[in-house]
């Protein structure tokens, strides 16, 4: 049996509601994943602490505050410091194409804009995790 895919979903920052994050959480659960929902107002340190303890394959962030250019790199850095470079960092928000490219160059996975399809995101996560596990030799 294939190892379960574990995903941490968090919404960093102080802005607004977490409806979008909850919708994504439900959709990934329905796609057969174990979704750890960390909720609102998570700092990068809290997110990485949770990712480590929950031993997730994926961290998915919903960032609507516009702070994506600081939060994604910070989470990447903290994951690296924790020896967890193999964790896939993905997420969504209102992120321009150039910014997406820049973040991906820094080491995030694919990022999703507002209109992205949920099933596409699930499919991407599944394939990317499979590839990373194969590389790791699981």
């Amino acid at each position, binding site marked *: 049996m294939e190892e379960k895919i574990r995903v941490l979903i968090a919404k960093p920052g102080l802005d607004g509601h977490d409806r979008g994050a909850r919708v994504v959480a439900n959709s990934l*659960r329905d796609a057969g994943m174990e979704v*750890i*929902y960390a909720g609102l107002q998570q700092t990068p340190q809290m997110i990485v602490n949770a990712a480590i*303890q*929950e*031993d997730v394959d994926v961290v998915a962030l919903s960032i609507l505050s516009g702070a994506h250019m600081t939060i994604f790199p910070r989470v990447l850095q903290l994951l690296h410091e924790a*020896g967890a470079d*193999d964790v896939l960092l993905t997420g969504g928000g209102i992120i321009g194409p150039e910014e997406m490219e820049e973040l991906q160059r820094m080491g995030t996975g694919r990022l999703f804009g507002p209109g992205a399809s949920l099933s596409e995101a699930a499919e991407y996560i599944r394939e990317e995790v499979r590839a990373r596990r194969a590389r790791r030799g699981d």
Partner: protein
Amino acid sequence: MASRTATEDDIPDTEPDLVPSLDDLLLRFDEGSKRAAARLISIVEEGRPEALAILDRLYPRVGGAIRVGVTGPPGAGKSTLADRLVELLVRAGEKPGIVAVDPTSPFTGGALLGDRVRMGPVANHADVFFRSLGSRGSLGGLSLHTAEVADVLDAFGCSWLLLETVGVGQSELDVAQKAHTTLVVLVPESGDGIQAMKAGLMEIADIFVVNKADRAGAEKLLEEIELSIDLKEWLGWRPPVFLTEARGGRGVEELHQALLAHRRWLEEHGMLQQKRRQALESRVRDLVEDVLHRELWQNGTLLQSLRDGLDTIERGEDSPYQLARALVEQGRAALAVRRALERGHPREPKG
């Protein structure tokens, strides 16, 4: 557990070792790495082949933690209460671990593990370890490997373990077997008070909590519980009933005291030892059954005989009972052959 911040696992900045060997993982576990502990938990949870070797190696260090089961209907406030209790425990110098189990969908295999949401800032304390589990293949609602996961955290140095599970299916009976003290959390709105209480709850509860005491009906529920406790005969420990308001932290100190009192009672009456022995018995029994079960079906011929037998039954030429008897014979014979083979090639005794 390392009393450092949670994420510094001190991986040197050279080639990242993405395939750490088991020994390396265990070494880092010994050094207090939360990442290593989390990886070991995953291996145990997946029931991978190396899980038994890991648990065997950790076993000498297992047994120190006070294990508290927390169960009750969804939304009763179990996670919120656990968060408050953890805050208090950390202040008291303890190292709490939380294992929170939520149901896995039997249809998709997916699960939404939402207990972490209720954790406040204390979740980030270096002395706290929080792990969410899906119930996965378990029928009862508690993950099959909950006790083993708890063992890993116990060996890691957690001094208290809170095992949270939704009171559905058999999970509350399950958690009661795995914990030393079982906390049943109810709320005023959980129906017609005590009538709504599932059968068996009275038997497993060591402590009752009526949470959401800020809501109407809390006092009434408390009285109903007290009344039904009075109707039973108690040998020794009579479960106390507490009003709490987890969100505001009210009643949590009293609850902590009650947990300690129950612990003392268990110790003074030899009950802790008895509980441990019972848990040990069911653990070893499970392990044996697991191995035998796997060995039995491992070789595909038995399964093939079963399928062939079904055809025979469908043709009206056999009954399920005859078939089962034949398969038992066949299975026994196959196991005997394997034993004989193993005797021919004796393994080195384990050092």
